[in-house]
């Protein structure tokens, strides 16, 4: 049945504040949790962080007291929601285990969005970065086994395969080659707008997490790997945020943020297997509806626009869903592993001119070796390379397991 957030009552913003005890939620059991519950927690934490950061930026561009107060109120509630969501992560889940969860989000969220993306160019953007995040999971999985003897499938539960993607060391490209053309805001499919906003939130949160947790280790290999992959996440945020049309006003962006939050909480609610956490998604969905109403009122008041003219008549019928995407990723790997970026285009590696800035950038940053390769070399020399290839051998012959050199 069509769900139109504009027709829902929701929870009024004035009734949304919660006590510390309500925010200090009981974490899930990391051994018993459904891996996709963990990914939902990670995604919704990132969604709240994006909402908060956007609101701060908006607030810094206005001194309208009414707007600043409404933004401040919404932000405080978003902060409370962020605490309630992120607090579900247990203290005995190490930063590296959380990282494996982040990469599972990156793989299965990106793949799902790409599979459902109606716009071929935006699908291409998702596919391109998907293979890079897929490789990160493999590198971190090997770090996990190397440092702790842990197996990544304890986190992923074999729902996401672990094997090389587009190798991380070749992902480093000149910043000019991460900038993409954007969709056109009048003509864009509403689903595409939601997809782009969602992936920007997810990738940005991943970037922030690695930026802050890269120094949690003593071991140089771990610190180096986090630094290297954090830089790819910077590339991905640049890549994805450039897909957003800069024509939209501050208030329109506010409305779109709230709408996307409703869509995402509604989506999480549809698939959640843990009743306690499901109740949290439901509560937050209703809270976001209340926050959306505030943004919509601001649009009417200040922009003279009716939000219904701008928004789709209902949420997309299909909720954003975490599920295995193994065949999709394998096919994509086989077809596009050698793609690179040349300006705003995607090209085959062989089609890049020999003097392209890509090669100069590669020579600079990979001089002395890349931690993402070192971690695999060390793993091979230590306990052996970790992979979780559940659906057969790797689709690319050159990326199949090698014996220890």
């Amino acid at each position, binding site marked *: 049945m069509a769900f139109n957030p504009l027709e829902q009552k929701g929870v009024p913003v004035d009734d949304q504040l919660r006590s510390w005890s309500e925010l200090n939620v009981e974490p899930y059991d990391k051994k018993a949790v459904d891996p996709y519950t963990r990914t939902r927690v990670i995604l919704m934490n990132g969604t709240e962080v994006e909402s908060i950061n956007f609101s701060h930026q908006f607030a810094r561009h206005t*001194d309208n007291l009414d707007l600043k107060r409404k933004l401040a109120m919404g932000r405080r509630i978003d902060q409370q929601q962020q605490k309630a969501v992120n607090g579900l992560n247990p203290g005995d889940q190490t930063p590296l285990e959380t990282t494996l969860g982040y990469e599972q989000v990156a793989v299965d969220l990106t793949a799902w969005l790409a599979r459902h993306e*109606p716009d071929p160019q935006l699908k291409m953007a998702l596919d391109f970065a998907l293979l890079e995040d897929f490789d990160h999971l493999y590198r971190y999985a090997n770090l996990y086994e190397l440092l702790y003897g842990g197996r990544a499938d304890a986190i992923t539960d074999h729902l996401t395969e672990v094997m090389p993607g587009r190798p991380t060391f070749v992902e480093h490209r000149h910043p000019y080659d991460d900038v993409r053309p954007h969709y056109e805001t009048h*003509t864009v499919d509403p689903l595409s707008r939601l997809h782009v906003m969602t992936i920007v939130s997810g990738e940005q949160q991943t970037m922030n997490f690695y930026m802050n947790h890269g120094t949690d280790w003593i071991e140089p290999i771990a610190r180096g790997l986090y630094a290297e992959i954090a830089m790819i996440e910077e590339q991905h945020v640049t890549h994805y945020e450039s897909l957003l049309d800069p024509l939209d006003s501050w208030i329109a962006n506010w409305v779109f943020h709230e709408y996307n939050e409703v869509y995402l909480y509604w989506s999480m609610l549809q698939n959640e297997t843990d009743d306690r956490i499901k109740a949290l998604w439901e509560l937050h969905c209703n809270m976001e509806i209340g926050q959306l109403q505030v943004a919509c009122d601001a649009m009417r008041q200040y922009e003279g626009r009716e939000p219904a003219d701008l928004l789709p008549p209902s949420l997309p019928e299909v909720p954003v869903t975490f599920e295995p995407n193994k065949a999709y990723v394998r096919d994509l790997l086989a077809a596009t592993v050698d793609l690179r970026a040349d300006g705003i285009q995607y090209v085959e590696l062989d089609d890049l001119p020999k003097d392209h800035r890509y090669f100069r950038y590669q020579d600079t940053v990979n001089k002395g070796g890349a931690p993402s390769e070192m971690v695999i070399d060390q793993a091979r020399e230590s306990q052996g390379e970790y992979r979780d290839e559940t659906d057969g051998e790797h689709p690319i012959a050159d990326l199949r397991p090698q014996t220890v050199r």
Partner: protein
Amino acid sequence: MPILTPTAATGARSVPQEMTYVDPVHQVMPDERDEFLAETDLNGPFVADLLSDMLAHERCGAQLYRSLAGRTNSPILGKKYEHFGKETTEHVEILQQLVGRLGGDPMYVSPAARATTKAGTGLLESTFLLTGSVDLMTQELVMLDAVLLAEAKDHANWSCLASLADSLPEGNVRTAFVEAVEHVEPQEDEHFGWASDMRCKLISAQATSRTMQVAGETAEKVIARIKRWLG
């Protein structure tokens, strides 16, 4: 029916540019643009872009008036904004019909229309993003400034269209242009004239009268007190 916000749902279409990607299903193809007004001596693709640009400006204008009518503290200005807003919304409809009569797509959003929308958005935002750093009298002037600037371009657009219509040979195309211009141009004259005169009156009243200073300060105090009561 006037469409104030073209979207994919209302059939919006555009053309890709270096940094603007448009899904092929929503693209206006080059041959379609070439065919527009092909039976005339006009530069069809340019005129299609121009009319889309004018439509974008009228759409922004309608939103500007709707916003200002609800936010001005002056009932006199509020009534005027409401009245002009209705007429501007009619202009959207007239332009949509004109484009349709000429064989074009009223939902086409040209690159020029995008640029105009950005300007219109900025103009509208100038009336509310900085309200905390201006007093009430200045705020009224800021809103009137936005109207004047918007109407200046609007007026120029329709004057230009009138000249274009005059230059056309007799026929359906000319008739379509002339009928639109004849309906709208007098109203644009009035809008622009009123905005110029009213702005001048407000400025003169404040510049030449100490009483206005006291009145302005009193009004500020009264409104501040009401706001405190309302929390």
